[in-house]
């Protein structure tokens, strides 16, 4: 599905931030191997409602240079847990319509336990650490920033949780 890329782009684990639509089949094609018995693909998609209100679309804003670094670090941590390098992650930013894929996570490994664990690790760490923000557009015209998770420097834990604007 994806055109042959140069070696460095084919190397796994691999994480990228994109602004064009994500092709789930291309993410799936990056993982899987003769020695693997389990392949898992997670897709995050834009929902048509939030807190009981109809949503018309979502704008994803990112601190793109930092987000690329953080996403690659998460993919590498997941590969270490997985025991194979076969982790491919794509996160989309900018304007997304209802039903569109905002994030795709592909992993594969000899056994399913680790595949489920690594897949879950990636999405949880994305929500905890990736410098990305969602602007939710409601049907009717108003919009809001989706409430998020305060970022905490490594080693600080929950004690110093940066507050939002009061």
């Amino acid at each position: 599905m994806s055109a042959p890329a140069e070696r460095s782009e084919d190397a796994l684990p691999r994480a990228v931030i994109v602004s064009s639509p994500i092709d789930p089949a291309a993410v799936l094609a990056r993982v899987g191997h003769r020695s693997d018995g389990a392949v898992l693909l997670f897709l995050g998609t834009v929902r048509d409602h939030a807190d009981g209100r109809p949503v018309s679309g979502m704008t994803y804003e990112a601190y793109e240079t930092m987000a690329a670094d953080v996403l690659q670090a998460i993919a590498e941590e997941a590969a270490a847990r997985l025991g194979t390098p076969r982790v491919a992650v794509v996160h989309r930013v900018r304007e997304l319509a209802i039903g569109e894929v905002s994030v795709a996570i592909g992993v594969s490994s000899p056994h399913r336990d680790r595949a489920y664990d690594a897949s879950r690790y990636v999405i949880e760490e994305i929500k905890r650490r990736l410098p990305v923000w969602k602007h939710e557009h409601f049907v009717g015209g108003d919009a809001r920033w989706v409430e998020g998770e305060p970022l905490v420097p490594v080693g600080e834990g929950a004690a110093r949780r940066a507050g939002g604007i009061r």
Partner: protein
Amino acid sequence: MQVRTLFFAAYRDTVGTTALELDLPEGATVGDLVVHLRRRGAPFDRLPEAPAVALNRTLVRGDAALAAGDEVAFLPPVAGG
């Protein structure tokens, strides 16, 4: 020394700008920068006292030392995925 500050998402909406060049005394820390900025008054005093800050794309604590040319980003609570 000059450092470049960036504001994202809700913080950008609060301060009304995406980036600001600041002139700070040598030896200033990230915490000093936050205090300096909030002392400018509205709208900067509406930033939190201890926001999450990335220094050159890495999250740091308030005691991190700044150098000329650094990129200091103010990061609201995140909501990726």
